Every structure is written in structure tokens, then in C-alpha cells.
């Protein structure tokens, strides 16, 4: 049972000299959860070359304390896991949350395995029920929603889907307020600010025999999927690489970025880094146009941040049509000629 006065530990990541946006969302989700059970929220963070972010970066996030581990500038996944493990041993939290981004999905299972506790991946909602954290996640490509608990082992661990413009609901009722407004790294609140956590700096635990990074190549210069105002998502309904090529030309003409479903990526129609969804990227454009996308919960986990969705699908039973603001039931073969009439050859 989660006892009142227990702790939630969240793993935070730096971004530049400040706190990453996903980390702020995660802290707020934890803070909403904490209110359901009189828990306190603590953060653990790896402080690299710049040291820990300024205290102001943690303001307004509902954090009671932050443990900052001084270590290497770009820690490996194993080094992050070791630091979080150390924090978990120091705090003995009831609940431990990690953002389910690429690195979080790698480090969290390491920590859970070492603590011999349960871990639920990619939670889309968390709540306390009878003192236990109920962790909701889609499985089977979204065909099934599972609620999972860790009744005995502690801490109760989850990776949490935090990206996307639509913050995850922590209590199923209200949206967490945008955390970063007025509390950015540049904003230095007064020392009297009651929302500031205490900051403790520790040496990161050494990890022997970690992999050595020989070379780093930054990626995605051409790629602005997360920031694009219009995204066109390609699904199996496009029929094949030819349809995808038309969609790409359409995206170019409309100034949109191109994304894809996992099914389309699995067939090799588009590279894996274009994938939108639970196991891919989360987008939050003003407009998402889906072409031949059925709209599984798993896809929507990455697309839910779109402010407006226009869905094109030939199958009137496709779930995306019910989720979109406008659902256009039409065959792509009938739509392409009309679009080419307006925009030129695609």
C-alpha cells in the first residue's frame, strides 16, 4: 500500500542549461498523482558539464527535492540507470516514473530489474486506487487497453508517455497546466518562492566497463516533425511506395512534414525515424492530415497532440474517422487526380 507521506521519484533530463520539456511534464504528472495520496515528489537528474539547471528551472513543478548527480557530460544509458538506482536507494520511493522516450525506455527496465520490481511501459494515464498506482497502457497496437498494478514490489515503476502537445492526464479530470510559462530557465523567481525544491548535489555512481562512445553524429537536420505546423501521415491505405511518393510531393507542395504509421514503416515505405506513434515520435501540429491511416490507439498516442485532424480513409469503419474533426471517406485513387488538378503533378 502507498502510505501517506511516501514519495514519488521522477527521473529528469537536462536540456541545454535548463530542464527538458518532457521532464517538466513528467514532474507535473507526478505532482497531480501525489495530490491523490498525500505523497511528495522528488526529482533525480544527471548534472553534466554545466552543472545542475538553475533552481528556478524547477519552480512550479510541485517538486519537494531534487537530487543532482554530477557525472560525465553525456551520460550513457547505463550511467543514467546507475544514478537513478542510487537515488531510488536513497529515497526508497513508493512510485518511480521515467519518461518513455528512447533513453527512458532503455534505462527504466535496467533500474526495475535491479530493484526487482514491476515496470509498466508507455503509460498514457496514471491514478491512485486503493493506495496503488493504476497504470493504463495500450497493448496489441492499441486494440486492448490494460490497467496494470504492482501490488507488492516497490517502487511501483512506470515509463510515461509525456511528449506531444496534449499533456497526459494524471487524474483523468483536469489537464495539468502548462508548466513552463513564466518558469523557463531564464526566469529566476525570488528565493521566497515556495514552489522551489531543495537541491542536493551528489557524485554520480561510477559504472565500470560502460560502452565507449567513439563518435557522435547529430541527426535530423532535415527533419522537423515535432515542430511542423502541418503533418501528413501515411498509412497502409496509400497502397504502396507509389502512393507514399505522391503523399511526399503533396507534403512538399503544402509545406507539410511527412510522417507514417508503424505498418507503413514496417513495410519499408518510409524510414523508421518518420514513424508517428507509441513506439515512434509524438507530433503536435496545427493540422494533421492522415492518408489511409486506420488510427490505432498506438498511432494516436503519437498523434493525439494535433490540434486538428483531417482523416482520409476509404474504409468507413476506420477508427481514425471518429477521432478526426473531418473524416473524408474516399478512395485515394479518386482523390489524387483532383489534388493534381489543383497543385500540379504529384
Amino acid at each position: 500500500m502507498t502510505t501517506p507521506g511516501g514519495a514519488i521519484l521522477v527521473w529528469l533530463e537536462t536540456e541545454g542549461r535548463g530542464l527538458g520539456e518532457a521532464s517538466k511534464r513528467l514532474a507535473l504528472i507526478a505532482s497531480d498523482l501525489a495530490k491523490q495520496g498525500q505523497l511528495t515528489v522528488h526529482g533525480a537528474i544527471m548534472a553534466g558539464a554545466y552543472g545542475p539547471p538553475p533552481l528556478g528551472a524547477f519552480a512550479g513543478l510541485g517538486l519537494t527535492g531534487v537530487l543532482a548527480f554530477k557525472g560525465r557530460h553525456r551520460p550513457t544509458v547505463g550511467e543514467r540507470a546507475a544514478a537513478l538506482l542510487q537515488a531510488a536507494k536513497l529515497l526508497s520511493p513508493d512510485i518511480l516514473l521515467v519518461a518513455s522516450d528512447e533513453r527512458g525506455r532503455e534505462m527504466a527496465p535496467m533500474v526495475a530489474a535491479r530493484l526487482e520490481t514491476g515496470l509498466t511501459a508507455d503509460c498514457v494515464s496514471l491514478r491512485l486506487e486503493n493506495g496503488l498506482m493504476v497504470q493504463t497502457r495500450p497493448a496489441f497496437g492499441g486494440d486492448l487497453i490494460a490497467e496494470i498494478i504492482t501490488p507488492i514490489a516497490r517502487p511501483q515503476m512506470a515509463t510515461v508517455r509525456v511528449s506531444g502537445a496534449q499533456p497526459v492526464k494524471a487524474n483523468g479530470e483536469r489537464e495539468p497546466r502548462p508548466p513552463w510559462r513564466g518558469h523557463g530557465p531564464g526566469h529566476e523567481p525570488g528565493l521566497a518562492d515556495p514552489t522551489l525544491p531543495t537541491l542536493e548535489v551528489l557524485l554520480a555512481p561510477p559504472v565500470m566497463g560502460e560502452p565507449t562512445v567513439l563518435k557522435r553524429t547529430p541527426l535530423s537536420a532535415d527533419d522537423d516533425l515535432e515542430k511542423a505546423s502541418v503533418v501528413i501521415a501515411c498509412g497502409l491505405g496509400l497502397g504502396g511506395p507509389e502512393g507514399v511518393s505522391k503523399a511526399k510531393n503533396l507534403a512538399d507542395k503544402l509545406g507539410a512534414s511527412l510522417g507514417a504509421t508503424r505498418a507503413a514503416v514496417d513495410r519499408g515505405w518510409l524510414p523508421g525515424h518518420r514513424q508517428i506513434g507509441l513506439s515512434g515520435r509524438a507530433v503536435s501540429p496545427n493540422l494533421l492530415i492522415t492518408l489511409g491511416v486506420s488510427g490505432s490507439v498506438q498511432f494516436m498516442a503519437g498523434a493525439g497532440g494535433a490540434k486538428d485532424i483531417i482523416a482520409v480513409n476509404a474504409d468507413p469503419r476506420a477508427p481514425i474517422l471518429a477521432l478526426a474533426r473531418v473524416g473524408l471517406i474516399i478512395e485515394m485513387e479518386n482523390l489524387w487526380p483532383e489534388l493534381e488538378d489543383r497543385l500540379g503533378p504529384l
Partner: protein
Amino acid sequence: MTDAPERTRLGPPTAPSFPNSAADRERDFREAEGYRPRVAVAIKQVPPSLGGATDPLKGFVLRTGPGRLNPHDGPAIEMALRLKDRYGALVDLFSMGPVQAETALKEALSLGPDRAFHLTDPLLAGSDSLATARTLIWAMDLEGPYDIIVSGLMTSDGGTGQVGPAMAALMDFPFAGRVSEIVSLEDGALTVKQLYRDELLETRLNLPCLVTVHPDGFTPRLPTVRARLRPRLVNRLTASDLIAPNPDQAPAQAALFGERGSPTKILRTHKPKANDKVLARPTPPVAASVIIEAALKAKS
């Protein structure tokens, strides 16, 4: 300040470790000439389509029908086979699952791995990612030691992607995720490229190590006719095989199997609710206008 540095990787050795003869074997033989690196691949059979039936009481996915190889495991096997092609590695497959999951191992064997081990026992049913990781490790300890353990990025049913990193932590192996290319295997180290969303890393890992495979770099090969015609033998392992090396610890180890050894429990499952909204069935010109005008508005 922290305590004195522990001279291990992630802290003291994992609690539920049951030493057995294979894992304790001297590794000196690796220095011997003509040594072939040993690679283990963890694979899974998944239901053929999404939305399988669930156990009404426990919420597990009922794995009774036919299945297919998890799509992410093809690339994992491909990476192991490239290690075989380039460095003469011996490739063993490991899978845990119900009796009929043997077909996935047979299918995978036709691609060219050397041996396949199928862990199947009612005691192992209902394993979550931690219990699965432990059980696979024990099976690999029986047949190993291995220099490189390869896992797919995730499965298409559970989709947690947790078993690979959990195995690395339990074994205290260096870990590299999202491997998209093998650079070299020499001087007791594997050098790979790791494809993250924001960067491509070239990373060197000392052996033994564990990697998860990014599907981008390893398009699976097709089975050869010769391999298909070869007898494809799948070795079956049961819970008692896993216990055999340490009979005195049998009760403790058995408590870590399957549902009993899984710290997570499924509270309930449900199908997402469908929303039946009235939808437009537009003519092509109307549909094109809706799309173009909305895009222009969203850009402005």
C-alpha cells in the same frame, strides 16, 4: 557524498542469480585460436493479428492460436547472422512461449542460425518483462556462456521493449540499444552504430555485451531452400531444466517463474470504445478543397 565506489557496473550483483556450472565456466578458452564468438538471440512468437482473446479472469493475452515471428525479431536474427557471416559466430536462438510457439523457432532456423531452444512450461505462463528476462537468462546460462546477446527492439504484442535492457542489467553486461550497424568485432570488443532520433552513435562495447536491434539497419534475409530442407531441430527446455543446476535452490527459483515471479499484475483489460460520429462522404473536389484550405490556414 556517495559510498565508496562499487567495482561493478550497476552495483552489487543481481539478487536473483543462481550460479550454475555453465555461467561459472572459465572464459579463458576464448583466447584460444579459432575461437568462434557465441551469439544468443532472444525471440518471441506473437499472435498473427492484433486483438487476441484475453483470459477473462487474469487479463493475460491467451496465446493459444497460431502465431508468427515478432516483426522486430527478424532484424535481431539478421544482425546475429551477419556476425556469423563476418566473424564465424555461432548463433543460438532462445524463445519462451507455449508449445505451438515452436513454429516461430523453426521458421527462424531456416534463416541460418545454428541451434534453437524453446522454453515451454505451464509454470512459465503469465511472465511479465522481468520474469521473462530472468527466465531467458537462466536458459542462456545453461547453454552459454555467450559473448553477445541480441534482442529485438520490442515485440508487436506487448510492445514494452523492456526485456532486452532488463536482461543486460540482470547480467551486468554493457548495453547498447537501437543498434543499426555492426562496425567491427575484434580484440574482445564489439563496435556498433546506434540510431537514436537525435543522433547516431558509434559505440564500443567490451564482451560479453547485450544489444537491441533497430530494424532500419538489418532487413531480414529470406530463408534459403537448403536451410528449409535441413532438419530443423528445436531443443525443448522446461522449468525443471532451469532448476537442475541448482536443485538446492529450487523453491526460491521456482517462486520467480511465470505469473508468480512477475511483480506486475493485470488489474483489468478492455477494448477501446468506438465513437460513431456522422462522417462526410465527399466528392473528390470537395475533399481536395477541404485538405488544401485547411493546410493553408494551418500554415498561416
